[in-house]
């Protein structure tokens, strides 16, 4: 397929009809400054050299591409490789874009960092890089998520961040984003907002993607070295879409590589309690971008449900919406129960406890494998480790049985 995915978004931040800048006027100047600063950094080899150095020495990149032999045997289908983002410092891929953004904040002379977090992984990554550079840091988190992810709340505080609980709305990720934006429009002079996904107004979906792209760049080189050929299928979970775009992006021009994003099916689509925006959502405007959104007939944003806090969000990044329209990527979902089975399966077969988010991707591989042949190859993004989820999973697994 001839497409210039690398050239997107356009100058105003649009991926076809998606994306853009739907924000209050106060933010327009800040976004303009950010775009200008990133534009400069992007063309500066020293910026990338500095980022690469931190990714290697501090984050631990490149992360391994691991052949999951026992899982492959268990499922009896294609060879399954795991891209081990769970082995990156702080235990998830979020550190990739947090590191890139804080280097940008330094260049812009900003002294205070804010971020939102759902599962807490982005909050932990942000608190980590803020601690490392000695910057003040405040993390907004829905109080429901704080309860689900108590361990990560403790980690962020240990790292010196102020964690502010958000009590409004559904008390989850979307409300944390609202509150972080409110902070940003108030503290316009000294504050840099480290966004946690390929969401929000332009230039964030572009910046976060560019910093996550390293996942796919590495995986592509690693699989070529191991197998001498490209994989048949890439699978990744999709909340806002940062880990999946990170894996997919470097493969977009490889027409034979199929890409599948897995959304949170919660209690099933029919129940209405899920976060599968491509299976029940439609076009809307949320948090600064025109994207697929779960909403009611009156345009009020719907509450979502997922066992995984990191996928529990009403919208999905604009580039995913566009790639789906182009039929370059496809999206499906896994339910809470399927994800929990996959959580257990990977733990048993490989000695790897995956994040509940990543477990959704594994769950889809379980469905996909029987339809594929043994000489095919699947690469799954293991976006995070599951230590943070153990309590939540225990509660749920006991509840189900």
């Amino acid at each position, binding site marked *: 397929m001839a497409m210039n995915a690398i050239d997107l978004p356009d100058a*105003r931040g649009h991926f076809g009809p998606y994306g*853009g*800048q*739907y*924000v*209050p*006027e*106060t*933010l*327009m*100047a*800040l976004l303009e400054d950010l775009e200008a600063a990133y534009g400069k950094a992007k063309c500066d080899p020293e910026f990338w050299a500095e980022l690469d150095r931190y990714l290697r020495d501090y984050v631990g990149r490149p992360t391994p591409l691991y052949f999951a032999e026992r899982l492959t045997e268990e499922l009896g289908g294609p060879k399954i490789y795991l891209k081990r983002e769970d082995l990156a410092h702080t235990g998830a891929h979020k550190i990739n874009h947090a590191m890139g953004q804080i280097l940008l904040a330094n260049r812009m002379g900003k002294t205070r960092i804010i971020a939102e977090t759902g599962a807490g992984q982005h909050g932990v990554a942000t608190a980590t890089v803020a601690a490392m550079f000695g910057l003040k840091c405040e993390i907004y988190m829905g109080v429901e998520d704080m309860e689900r992810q108590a361990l990560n709340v403790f980690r962020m505080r240990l790292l010196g961040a102020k964690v502010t609980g958000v009590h*409004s*709305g559904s008390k989850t990720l*979307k*409300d944390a*984003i*609202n509150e972080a*934006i*409110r902070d940003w*429009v*108030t*503290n*316009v002079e000294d504050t840099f907002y480290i966004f946690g996904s390929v969401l929000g107004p332009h230039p964030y979906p572009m910046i976060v993607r560019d910093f996550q792209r390293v996942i796919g760049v590495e995986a592509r080189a690693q699989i070529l070295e191991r197998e001498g050929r490209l994989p048949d299928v890439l699978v990744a979970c999709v909340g806002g879409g940062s880990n999946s775009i990170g894996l997919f992006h470097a493969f977009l021009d490889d027409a034979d590589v199929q890409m599948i994003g897995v959304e949170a099916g919660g209690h099933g689509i029919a129940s209405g309690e899920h976060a599968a925006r491509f299976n029940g959502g439609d*076009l*809307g*405007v*949320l*948090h*600064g971008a*025109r994207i697929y*959104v779960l*909403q009611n*007939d*009156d*345009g*009020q*944003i719907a509450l979502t449900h997922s066992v995984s806090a990191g996928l529990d969000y009403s919208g999905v990044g604009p580039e995913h919406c566009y790639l789906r329209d182009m039929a370059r990527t496809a999206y499906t979902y896994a339910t809470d129960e399927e994800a929990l089975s996959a959580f257990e399966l990977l733990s048993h077969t490989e000695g790897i406890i995956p994040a509940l988010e990543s477990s959704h991707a594994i769950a889809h591989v379980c469905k996909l494998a029987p339809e594929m042949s043994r000489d095919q190859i699947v690469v799954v993004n293991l976006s995070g480790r599951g230590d943070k989820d153990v309590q939540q999973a225990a509660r749920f697994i006991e509840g189900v049985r």
Partner: protein
Amino acid sequence: MTRIGRRFDDLRKAGRAGFVAYIAAGDPDLNTTYQMVLELDRRGVDVLELGVPFSDPLADGPVIQEASQRALAAGATLEGVLSMVADVRTETEIPIVLFTYYNPIHRYGVDCFVKRAADVGVDGVLMLDLPPEEGGDYIAQMNEHGLDTIFLVTPTTRDDRMKLIASHTRGFVYYVSRTGVTGERDSLADEIQSKVSAICQYTDMPIAVGFGISTPEHVSEIARYADAVVVGSAIVRRIGEFQCDADLVAKVGAFVGSLIGPLREGV
């Protein structure tokens, strides 16, 4: 020209500043809002801003967030607000601006919304999270139906954008007097006067100043150099406090009367 333009012409002739009141439509319910519109008209409000409730009001502080939640809980919808305007329009000529986030309009359909708004007697729309760059279709539709597109200028708006915003604004320019969300403040922000003069270089439209204005003293101060003063959270907070009171409408009316007082004394 809409009712907004005519009202500002009258104000200019009378040599006084106008008073713009914001209330959250449907808080505590649409019947009360209907009564409130008539009360505020009687009290001398020059332009009424009706907030369309939205689940994720990211430019609003706690007072208007809570009002929005109350309105949604009471079943307010965009269509409900439009129907209420249609009803109240038979009884009053007060200029009405809908103050809204974009998603409910996007969902309703920009075309359908603008037609319906014109039909029911809305005069202008202020879309909080739709900058002119993204609003081409909306602006065209609004112009075609003779409705005013009101845009915001803020302390962070630079001269080049001020020019762009001024060129798309009809009715009045809304100057947001401080960075941050809506809400009451003890003191006024700095540099409001110089920003208002800066905006005047780009437009002949009236300039209204809002955000953080909560007392009669603030109102007098702003009225010295702006064409109109906007008060929102201070009114909405009282609607919240008095919502179980049988005299809710009269009490809020009396408070608004006290804010308008200073604007009339100079006449």
